[in-house]
């Protein structure tokens, strides 16, 4: 799977994401520990209780977080110590389709925020309204720089709304799945 080395430019972001992932994992494991300890762990006629496997999983999770953290610290020290040759760009990352980590984070956070706003709007209005707003805003954001003119923006908005209507009609009337 993914074991290529990050470029120097992206390394900070990869490290940040790793930190978030590890802190999130260990935080969740520690948070779940007290309720797990209240579960039963087997007894008469039941060698394994509902809490047995969860407690094993949580213990192993904490252990693995510590191991991965140790590996990352060692890797970080190696890089800083200059023992590891810094890789400016890998073949994958130099690909014209590969975005920088900063760009990925910005786009992902913005898109997820937009999706959450869409869900809130959907709960308070109707699906076509909320989805059209979401789709039009995202379409504008994704328009190429040279296309951000009234004519192109209008056609993008129209196409986005048509797309929403197609999805709505497909689910509501063909698949009979009500989007309320």
């Amino acid at each position, binding site marked *: *799977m*993914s*074991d290529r080395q*990050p470029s120097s430019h992206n390394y900070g*972001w*990869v490290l940040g*994401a790793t930190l978030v*992932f590890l802190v*999130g*994992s260990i935080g969740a*494991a520690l948070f*779940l520990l007290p309720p*797990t300890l209240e*579960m*039963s762990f*087997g007894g008469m006629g039941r*060698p*394994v209780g*509902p*809490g047995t*496997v*969860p407690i094993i999983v*949580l213990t*192993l*999770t904490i252990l*693995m977080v510590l*191991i991965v953290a140790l590996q990352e610290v060692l890797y970080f020290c190696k890089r800083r110590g200059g023992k590891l040759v810094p890789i400016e760009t890998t073949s994958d990352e130099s*690909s*014209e*389709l*590969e*975005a920088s980590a900063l*760009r*990925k*984070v*910005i*786009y*992902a956070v913005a*898109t*997820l925020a937009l999706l*959450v706003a869409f*869900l809130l709007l*959907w*709960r308070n209005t109707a699906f076509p309204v909320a*989805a059209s707003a*979401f*789709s039009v805003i*995202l*379409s504008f*954001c*994704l328009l*190429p720089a040279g296309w951000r003119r009234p004519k192109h923006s209008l056609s*993008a908005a129209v196409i*986005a709304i048509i*797309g929403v209507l197609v*999805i709505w009609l497909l*689910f509501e009337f063909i698949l*009979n*799945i009500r*989007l309320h």
Partner: protein
Amino acid sequence: METISLLAGGFQTLAANPVGILWIALGVFVGITCGAIPGLTATMGVAVFIPITFSLEPEIALATLIGVYCGGLSGGAVPAILLNIPGTPSAMVTTLDGHPMARQGLATRALGWALVASVVGSFVGWVALVTMAPVLARLALNLGSAEYAALALFGLTIVVSLSGSALAKGLLCALIGIALSMVGLDPTTGEDRWTFGTINLFQGISIMPALIGLFAIPEILMAIAAPGVQKRLNLERSRMIPTLGEMMMQKWNLLRSSIIGVGAGIIPALGGNIGSILAYDQSRRFEKDGAKYGTGRPGGIVASEAANNGVTGGALIPLLTVGIPGDSVTAMLIGGLMIHGLQPGPRLFEANGDIVYAILAAFLLATIMMYLLSVVGYRYVVRVLNLPRHVLYPALLLLTVVGTYALNRQIFDVGLMLALGALGFIATLARFPVYPIVLGLVLGPILESEMRRALLVSGGEWSIFLTRPVSAVLLLLSVMAIVGPIVVRYMQKSRASRNASS
């Protein structure tokens, strides 16, 4: 003989449902299109398409999804050849000879070779599936709880062992997946586990929101961030499909590569990427013009495409026989099976034999349709590559949201899907493998329930896992899968340092 008659029944079921055949054709077309768009994969196509198949009959729904799977792997060759950008990860090797051929003005021919190889690979995969799956399912019926628990553990460890140098990261992700699978009421005692009183979590985390969140959302987010490809593409007008004589010259390459693909599909997590690399490497060794591979030789395209399509049949074997997904798309298919009330595993052939054989028949039909649709439609699929991102991605995101909502008509599921999508995105960015999380989520309940059942039978004796031969062998293989890569890496390092010092 029994298999042939059951398969004939499967074909009859399909023939009686012409609308179903149209759905399969649509699935194949959507798959080819998804595969052809760089950044989108067959997994994404299946994720978006599962909700649309809710209302279909199970065999047609599953056949449509398999059509998306086959089409997706085949479509990946289009941008690999035309743009030097693999449409799907498994088409990476296709770029090596496909794009040089396109630069020589032979793009249509290269696409023709890719198509023929994809169809042969899919066909060989289908033959392997039809001949091996029923036999293996019958054998698997003899397995007890201890063996099933060991098998689930083996499935998890083999995936983790393929996490490359990130073995610990893979293990952590598998554990996170298992932890997610434990949320909800305990299936045996009904005790509350990590729900914190949330009614929506009493039934546990639904598999589909989790799969869509972990696979599709990070994929779309990454694709949205990628700079757009603004090249206008068209195909030159020339003969596409190679002649029979030309194909016969590649017959051993086609067969060898397809078989390698099937093998790679059977082993969980190897998948199309490694299958096509292995096949390309073997083809380079055995073919006469192997030394010229990388300069635009049809043999290179044939090896890569036959292997990555052979994977489809191979990956379905562990899915249908023991309920272990061979790759990320088959993990999605598990969700598809469950939605239609089908439990993947050996009992599937016994309990729902008619549906399973209809699915197997539909797989062959999807392969034939892949050929026909590609011959007619590649020229149009190429135009999809010109589709602007601002049209494509909002629609795809809406489809994932609506699809997740359609499952239980709950906004909660959509929120869960987005939360897991964020988790998947962070994991991808931090270079943690996402597939072990999904596999942990799928195999966690099997591992726990079968382990508890085995211990109940043995009266709490953990030695039951070692005294039963199949279970003991699987546990030994699991240990080897984890320890093996560490030992190999240690030996490689010590050899390298010995060489450096001498």
